[in-house]
């Protein structure tokens, strides 16, 4: 890699990708540090180390500081948190940081935004960059005053020499040429960062920096981007999964005023000055299309389909002791199968992108999780160097793991290339339901064995199709066999908030409850008797205490059940106690109260973490009780909010969240794991009230009528 870093003033050289105005808008007036394409871009932010400070921190003459991150803001709170990280180490309030996110011409490649990785993977490098910058600035001041840097104090964006009362602000230093040179030095991974007990900005409920724009309707989401002379694009979709276009007559669409039609094999798109017009053209053409369809299974028998198509050999199980012997020696054994439906993420903003070509360079504004991944995908699609693709992810309208792919960006770019104009493609809700990937359905087979004293001695657990997240049991069991087995999913599937941990925890924690009942033990006592992990024990005991578990457990009636569950994933721990109201005749299940305890190490932003936990609980209610993608003959039967119910205000139970601030370990992310305890706690509460065990997600009340 021969890339060079050049440090120039704004007036003498501009990044060729940007107009001066764009750059000033992006970074603010001050020293412009251009980083030659290829260096920063080739470096993965999470690896930290060798990246120059300039790649992350830019000092502005007005005293503000620009920080740069490759992460995407989609409502999870990364913008506030990464701003706090930079502010903490530069010792300024968070509102002095202007954070640029997810712009491949300006920020490092920090990977895709997923897996609760921002907190453990991206906050530390941001803090190291800011701390290195602070040290370099302190050294510059020390040099200027000819004193030892260690004698200087850094506070509120200024460096002070107490002995002489001399003071230099960051704004003063921003004007110095030495800063540019200093900031070309590498970020030090061994730099001293603030200890948790010294935090002033981290640890506080800093609001989302651009929230005023959100309440004013001024923020531009990907679907709001408008470019001069932009057209709106629509793509012809197959009538069912796997259908291929055999013929189409585009004459009528082409004859429509202001409509441009693009066909390239199976890709047929329409662009027009309004989305209404583009849709009219698409509908006119669709009437003439002839499709070859393929057979496709129904959601009604999807679980037997997944089982029949499971990988042979049952994957590579992780084994402890001997499951055969454990089950054979057990005084009592249970064997049950749990299932999960496919569900959709349904972020409020469906996929959207604008693409624009200029002089062979492609610029795309898109709603997706991976700016650099999208850049690579687009470069491959058009067989061009990645350096000629510029991807910008404006803060977008939700994702929940569902926007790793950038289909709309590719579609917009194809239409823009063929028509010669910028094109906006915004998926409809029906398209998002039908063509975005789903959370996998699953079949989870569980066997358990108890000895004569009621202790768990055998545990056999196999997840077919959904994956291995949180599949290991945290319980102390001498004989276990645990496997994640792939299958041939007939539906496009992918990530979802906390991946398979929700399904695995649903099956495990429900089955634990079944075993507790078989052992004649209280569900809390049974878990604690098998649980060593002190963090899980702490959240479970705290949730039980806040909920008043012991007393409320005694008061269970056929109409009112309580249940609990716990779990761990992504280095965080959660426990939930719920109260569920049951109307057996009406087949209704109403979650009345959720008491959840969550711990993910030192809390970096308590306000945002509370929102994330509340959001997980309510999103989790949907998957637990009503959400299910239904399909038949390759068609989604409920591709809209009419047929696919998501939680609304009226579904929200009394929610009591307790966040444990554990300060002696590193912080973990908190946007996913709080979702995993809810469904099993509900399942256990239904069982406590009715004696009926519903082993499928969603848990439908009709099951209570039939039982």
């Amino acid at each position, binding site marked *: 890699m021969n890339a060079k870093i050049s440090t120039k003033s704004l007036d003498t050289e501009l990044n060729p990708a940007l107009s001066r105005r764009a750059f000033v808008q992006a970074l603010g007036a001050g020293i412009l540090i251009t980083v030659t394409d290829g260096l920063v871009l080739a470096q993965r932010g999470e690896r930290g180390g060798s990246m120059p400070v300039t790649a992350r921190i830019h000092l502005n003459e007005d005293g503000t500081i620009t920080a740069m991150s490759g992460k995407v803001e989609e409502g999870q709170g990364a913008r506030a948190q990464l701003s706090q990280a930079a502010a903490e180490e530069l010792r300024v309030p968070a509102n002095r940081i202007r954070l640029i996110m997810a712009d491949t011409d300006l920020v490092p490649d920090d990977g895709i935004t997923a897996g609760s990785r921002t907190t453990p993977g991206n906050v530390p490098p941001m803090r190291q960059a800011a701390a290195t910058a602070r040290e370099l600035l302190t050294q510059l001041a020390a040099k200027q005053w000819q004193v030892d840097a260690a004698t200087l104090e850094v506070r509120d964006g200024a460096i002070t020499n107490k002995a002489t009362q001399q003071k230099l602000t960051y704004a003063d230093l921003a004007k110095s040429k030495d800063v540019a040179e200093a900031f070309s030095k590498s970020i030090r991974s061994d730099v001293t960062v603030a200890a948790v007990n010294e935090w002033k900005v981290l640890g506080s409920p800093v609001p989302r920096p651009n929230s005023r724009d959100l*309440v004013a309707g001024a*923020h531009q989401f990907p679907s709001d981007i408008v470019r001069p002379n932009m057209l709106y694009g629509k793509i012809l979709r197959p009538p069912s999964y796997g259908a291929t276009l055999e013929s189409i007559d585009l004459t009528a669409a082409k004859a429509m005023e202001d409509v441009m039609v693009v066909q390239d094999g199976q890709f047929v798109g329409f662009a027009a000055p309004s989305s209404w017009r583009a849709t009219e053209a698409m509908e006119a053409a669709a009437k003439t299309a002839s499709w070859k369809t393929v057979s496709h299974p129904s959601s009604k028998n999807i679980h037997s389909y997944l089982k029949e198509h499971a990988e042979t050999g049952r994957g590579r199980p992780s084994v402890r002791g001997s499951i055969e012997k454990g089950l054979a020696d057990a005084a009592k054994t249970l064997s049950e199968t749990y299932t999960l439906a496919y569900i959709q993420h349904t972020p409020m*903003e469906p996929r959207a992108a604008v693409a624009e070509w200029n002089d062979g360079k492609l610029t795309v504004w898109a709603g997706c999780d991976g700016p650099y991944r999208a850049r690579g995908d687009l470069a491959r699609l058009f067989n061009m160097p990645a350096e000629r693709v510029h991807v910008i992810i404006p803060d977008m309208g*939700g994702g929940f793991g569902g926007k790793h792919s950038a289909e709309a960006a590719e579609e917009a770019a194809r239409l823009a290339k063929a028509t010669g104009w910028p094109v906006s493609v915004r998926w409809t*809700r029906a398209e998002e339901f039908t063509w975005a990937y789903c959370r996998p359905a699953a079949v989870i087979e569980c066997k358990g064995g108890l000895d004569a004293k009621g202790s768990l001695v055998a545990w056999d657990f196999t997840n077919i199709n959904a994956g291995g997240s949180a599949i290991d049991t945290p319980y102390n069991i001498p004989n276990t066999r645990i496997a994640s087995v792939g299958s041939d999913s007939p539906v496009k599937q992918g990530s979802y908030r906390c991946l398979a941990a929700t399904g695995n925890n649903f099956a495990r924690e429900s089955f634990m409850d079944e075993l507790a009942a078989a052992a004649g033990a209280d569900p809390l006592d049974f878990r604690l008797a098998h649980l060593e992990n002190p963090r899980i024990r702490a959240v479970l005991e705290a949730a039980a205490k806040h909920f008043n578990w012991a007393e409320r457990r005694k008061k269970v009636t056929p109409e009112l059940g309580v249940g609990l569950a716990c779990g761990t994933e992504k280095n965080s721990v959660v426990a939930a106690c719920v109260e569920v109201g049951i109307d057996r005749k009406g087949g209704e299940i109403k979650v009345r109260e959720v008491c959840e305890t969550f711990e993910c190490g030192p809390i970096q932003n308590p306000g945002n973490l509370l929102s994330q936990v*509340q959001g997980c609980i309510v999103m989790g209610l949907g998957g637990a009780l009503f959400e299910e993608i239904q399909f038949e003959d390759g068609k989604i039967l409920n591709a809209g*909010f*009419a047929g696919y119910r998501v939680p609304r205000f*009226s579904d929200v139970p009394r929610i009591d969240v307790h966040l444990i601030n554990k300060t002696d370990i590193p912080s973990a992310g908190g946007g996913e794991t709080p979702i995993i305890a809810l469904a099993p706690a509900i399942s256990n509460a239904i069982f406590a009230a009715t004696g009926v065990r519903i082993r499928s997600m969603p848990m439908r009340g009709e099951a209570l009528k039939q039982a």
Partner: protein
Amino acid sequence: MDVTVTMVVNGVERTVTTDPQRPLLDVLREELHLTGTKYGCGEGRCGACTVLMDGKRTLACVTPVSLADKKAITTIEGLAKGDALHPAQEAFLEEGAMQCGYCTSGMILSTVALLKENANPTDEQIVAGMNGNICRCNGYVKIVNAVRRAAEKMRR
């Protein structure tokens, strides 16, 4: 056949000649470049496209633009007076009642409409009044708090 529709949008008279069946949402966003009103479902079931038409809550995605002729439309962009936010906007800001913020415009306009009908709603009335608006991120708790706070502010 196209029709000419004249509306007063956020206090300004606007005239658009277009297909009468075209959704008001598309006209606001694509012709008038008021992108604060969002598309969420296209079937009037999520509330992201909520605007006020002659003061009444209206779902712009299922309202043909011809029905907006000679009407006064208020979108999220029209709530603030200069730099001064509307109390409902302030309340959402102060409660941190948004995560991704995509549903926020519709939530705020539904709040304004709800409080116009009932200046002092109970929690049950807030839930009933806001139930047409979907949020996928934040669990609704902070939004209910924001509606309560907006009500307090507007009663002052």
